[in-house]
């Protein structure tokens, strides 16, 4: 760390964490919601397998999962070469950090949303909406989503929290590259690794206060709405 507590590297890490958590949040909504809806309404083998694969990242040690993703997306991997042709390099870029946050948080978002979408009370009101002329997509946004908001907010809170605390996948996929892919959590991890527990503790307090702010905003949204 160069000088003072809020060194440029630290500020970079904080910004990167905010950006990756924010992007992951948008991705949870954009991709997680349709997935949750699909899983809740379909009993097909396909849907159940997909639901299982989304939950899998939770079961694996993050480091191991990161390694597998690295094999998949890295230079030699099956997806890595395709990427190469497109001129994109996902691994070791900020995209990798976002992907890690997304993969780590997704199951925590999809599952509660899925459970909520299965509630009979919600299904009855969806019927009411359909009869009033509102198609399935619009019904989803105007009726299903607002009614399931408690579970959606609670899932979002868990998923973003998990994304912000993610270390293992981010380190493997993102590379922990200073000024490029080192999130606040990785900075804390680095401090612990070199035995610098005091700095780790202050960074943790910083992370805790940021989370506290986010937490109370989401908590308020969840209860008040």
């Amino acid at each position, binding site marked *: 760390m160069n000088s003072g507590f809020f060194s440029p590297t630290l500020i970079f890490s904080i910004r990167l964490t905010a950006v990756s958590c924010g992007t992951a949040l948008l991705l949870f909504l954009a991709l997680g919601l349709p997935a949750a809806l699909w899983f809740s309404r379909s009993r097909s083998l396909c849907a159940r397998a997909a639901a299982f694969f989304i939950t899998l990242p939770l079961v694996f040690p993050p480091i191991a999962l990161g390694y597998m993703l690295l094999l998949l997306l890295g230079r030699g991997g099956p997806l890595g070469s395709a990427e190469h042709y497109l001129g994109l390099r996902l691994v070791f870029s900020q995209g990798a950090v976002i992907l890690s946050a997304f993969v780590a948080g997704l199951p925590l978002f999809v599952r509660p949303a899925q459970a909520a979408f299965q509630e009979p009370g919600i299904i*009855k*009101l969806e*019927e*009411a*909406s*359909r*009869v*009033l*002329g*509102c*198609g*399935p997509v*619009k*019904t989803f946004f*105007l*009726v299903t989503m*607002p*009614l399931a*908001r408690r579970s959606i907010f609670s899932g979002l809170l868990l998923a973003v929290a998990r994304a912000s605390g993610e270390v293992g996948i981010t380190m493997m996929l993102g590379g922990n590259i200073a000024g490029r892919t080192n999130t606040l959590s990785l900075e804390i991890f680095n401090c612990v690794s070199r035995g610098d527990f005091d700095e780790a503790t202050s960074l943790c307090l910083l992370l805790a206060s940021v989370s506290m702010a986010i937490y109370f905003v989401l908590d308020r949204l969840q209860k008040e709405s």
Partner: protein
Amino acid sequence: MLHIDITKRLDRFSLEIVLDIDVPGITAVFGPSGAGKSTFAKILAGLCTPDGGRISFNEKVFFDGDAGVNLPPERRGVGFLFQEHRLFPHMNVFKNLSFGCFAGGRPPCGDVAEIAKVFGIDHLLRRSPASLSGGESQRAALARAILAAENFIIMDEPLSSLDDALRENLMGYIERIPPLFGIPIIYITHSREEVTRLAQRVILIEEGRVMGCGSPSKLLKKWRRTVSHQDQKYEGMDNQ
């Protein structure tokens, strides 16, 4: 012209409805509890898929089991009043009433404020449905269904939780919906009074079958028989 020829099995209950009638004005669907009236209504609205058969209204095919046609509820243009209201708890009464218009793209067949006034709920428009009394909810749901209807309105016991005075008044209003807006009503009820007062024709349903269809006065005798049948069914009580 409403053409219906469908079958539907539900566990031990089976519904087999064959009907081919003109439905201007108010058509009552009348029968005892558990006869299949609500199930019939849901099939008509597209909320429940029959096992097979055909439903069409005028030239429009709603359902055809053989041709694989099954129009989704939102494209059938019906207004539906559920037996349990189903007001959206996350919207105030005004938003509920105008839902068919702003969300469903249905042309409003009346002014929200005006209809709310008629139903005596104009002072409740900013309130949440959770804070309404049973009768207030019923009226709000009724108003919402009327506002969204295009082809016809299905009402599943619309007056059952209203007080006599209100029931009396709303009947007068319901009576006037078909002539005013040119929209027929399929009116599900088990009240004799409502049938005789409102309906131009009545479809008698019992144990999932159409037992008769015609003018209320003509079917009166048949209905009497139903009542005595019911009396027999629940005679256990008289022995207590």
